[in-house]
């Protein structure tokens, strides 16, 4: 049951509008973006806010391409501006080189990624391949389950990224169309509460003629490695920060979506289903049915993919009899999705010896239905009895197309 006072605050708006509103109340100083489906409505809504004078002390740069969108934010962030962008798919891929550069210079740019499949073949619908392809760019990546979480995670991410001990950029990854174009009841972030939660951006180092500093220097082998180490250290510091910021957010706004991970019916679960993003809603519905029948099935939502919460994952699944991981992406050449590979890798040197199987699903927006999840659970049950026969596989391929 939703608390009636809470319900009163809810409005039914498009996901993109709600996200744009969140970006607005975070008080960005520079926004720069380039339209691409299904991110477009976010930037259009922000443009309208600008046109209506609703974002004070902010410049909106209508760039000629995503590469310039992220590059402009590199410059702006280095001057000390809070910056925002949104993109997806080809746009995110076009940013690739500059993503490394943003994080390497430790500029806490924040971006929403409305996840979409990548070309070729061209496809505008949702999967996670675009963001997963950026996993090694040194950005924080938080995957969200619903529109409310997409909204609420933005100010959280600013707070994490702009922490002077961290200073790493980040993306909020939300499923394209499924969350960006859905109309859902949400609570739009209140300006006063957001101001209480999110302090102004006060970086220690900026481009300022009063105190000239060099950004983006040349580092030879005698110094480069330490930059990489310190970047990794910053990501490690982000792990507890992601947890604590989620709790601080809950204290002020009354909503909690999980920290690094979030369990559902997990405590005594024998079968654990792990995944990221909006598919978790469907999974939880199916799990409810299994629980109603007394079957011990639980869900582990992975919210933070970068930094990767190894310890929290080990802890969450240590008592399971089998774990099944659903990935909306594939690393071609491994027949595995990224979450599957990484979860297995984080178990190897631990004492946890449970079978882990993977499914790579929902590519290019293919629907994943309740029946599909049930089928996966049934197949996974067999693994407990007879061991792993197929380690990782595509779900329901159409034979006639192969």
């Amino acid at each position, binding site marked *: 049951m939703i608390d009636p006072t809470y319900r009163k605050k809810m409005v039914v708006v498009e996901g993109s509008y709600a996200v744009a509103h969140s970006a607005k109340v975070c008080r960005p*100083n520079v926004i720069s973006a380039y339209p691409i489906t299904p991110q477009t409505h976010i930037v259009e809504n922000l443009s309208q806010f600008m046109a209506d004078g609703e974002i004070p002390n902010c410049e909106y740069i209508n760039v000629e391409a995503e590469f310039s969108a992220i590059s*402009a934010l590199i410059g702006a962030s280095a001057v000390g501006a809070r910056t925002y962008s949104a993109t997806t798919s080809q746009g995110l891929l076009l940013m690739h080189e500059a993503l490394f550069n943003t994080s390497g210079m430790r500029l806490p740019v924040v971006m929403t990624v409305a996840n979409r499949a990548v070309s070729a073949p061209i496809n505008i619908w949702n999967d996670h391949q675009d963001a997963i392809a950026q996993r090694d760019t040194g950005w924080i990546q938080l995957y969200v389950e619903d529109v409310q979480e997409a909204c609420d995670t933005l100010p959280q991410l600013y707070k994490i990224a702009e922490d002077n001990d961290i200073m790493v950029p980040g993306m909020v990854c939300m499923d394209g169309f499924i969350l960006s174009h859905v109309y859902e009841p949400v609570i739009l972030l209140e300006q006063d509460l957001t101001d209480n939660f999110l302090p102004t951006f006060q970086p220690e180092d900026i481009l300022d003629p009063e105190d000239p500093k060099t950004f983006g220097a040349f580092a030879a082998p005698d110094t480069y490695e330490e930059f990489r180490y310190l970047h990794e250290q910053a990501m490690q510091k982000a792990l507890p920060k992601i947890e604590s910021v989620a709790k601080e957010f809950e204290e002020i706004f009354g909503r909690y979506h999980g920290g690094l991970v979030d369990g559902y019916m997990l405590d005594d679960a024998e079968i654990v289903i792990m995944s990221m993003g909006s598919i978790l809603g469907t999974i939880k519905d199916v799990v409810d049915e299994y629980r109603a029948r007394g079957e011990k099935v639980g869900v582990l939502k992975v919210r933070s993919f970068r930094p990767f919460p190894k310890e929290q994952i080990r802890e969450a699944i240590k008592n399971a009899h089998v774990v099944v991981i659903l990935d909306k992406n594939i690393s071609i050449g491994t027949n595995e999705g990224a979450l599957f590979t990484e979860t297995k890798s984080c178990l190897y040197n631990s004492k946890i010896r449970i079978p882990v199987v993977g499914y790579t699903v929902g590519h290019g927006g293919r629907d994943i239905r309740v029946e599909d999840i049930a089928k996966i659970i049934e197949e996974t049950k067999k693994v407990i009895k007879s061991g792993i026969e197929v380690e990782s596989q595509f779900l329901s391929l159409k034979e006639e197309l192969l």
Partner: protein
Amino acid sequence: MSKNTPQTYITSGHSGCAGCCDAFAAKFALMGAGPNTIVVNPTGCLEVMSTPFPYSSWQVPWIHSLFENAGAVASGVEAALKALGKKDDIKVISIGGDGSTMDIGLGALSGAFERGHDFTYVCMDNEAYMNTGVQRSSGTPFDASTTTTPAGKVSFGNPRPKKNMPAIMVAHGSPYVATTSIGFPRDMIRKVKKATEIVGPTYIHSHAPCPTGWGFDTSKTLEIAKLAVETCLWPMYEMENGEITQVRKVKDPRPVEEYLRAQKRFKHLFTMEGGEEEIKKIQATADWNIKHFGLQ
């Protein structure tokens, strides 16, 4: 230079080659722009030689991001200064090589100029990609030998003339576009100063002979630069709102041969069969410049 000479804000001690054109270009650009300046520098010789961590030659705030995004980074710097209420006091200049400016970074630069950001872009044109070892750029002149357009049994070197970059920038509606040369420091300093004082996106294209890439003695950088102007291969002019408003006259133009002979990159024109004809084509370019820009 006299004691009225403006101060520069780049220190010595960088690791550029002796007689480096890029070092001159940066020095003169900063003498024009002054201390209240943020510099955006794309990848290239200048960036690499001036910032070996933990050292830096820059006495003004400086940022390098990538090879192809200086126009966009400068846009962001300018926009952020505006949003934070600091733009009135601080100038933004970008200093990039011909490769980053005319080839890989042209899209970002075009975007920045079309949007009308208030900054000055200085191209230091050493007519090839020097940082990666003298490969052709679209600023490489006709018949120059580079490592990707080498002269050979059936080639006189680069088969194409230089891209007319100033014209492209004028076409963006820039209020001020000027060519200059590091061989004429006072001219360059004056033009950069003027450009940074004009509101809107302004562009300075500075000719910058590179001893290493072009093959001449390290003491001759400024001499060769002057020779390019005196042979009329490098016309110096200012354009304001699309009109030519000033041209540096050349009283007695010298034959292009003098300029070509002084550099290894054109050496083949003097040894290969048919070289004479090629030199005539280059002379024709100089003659066209004389007429077109009214250099005499």
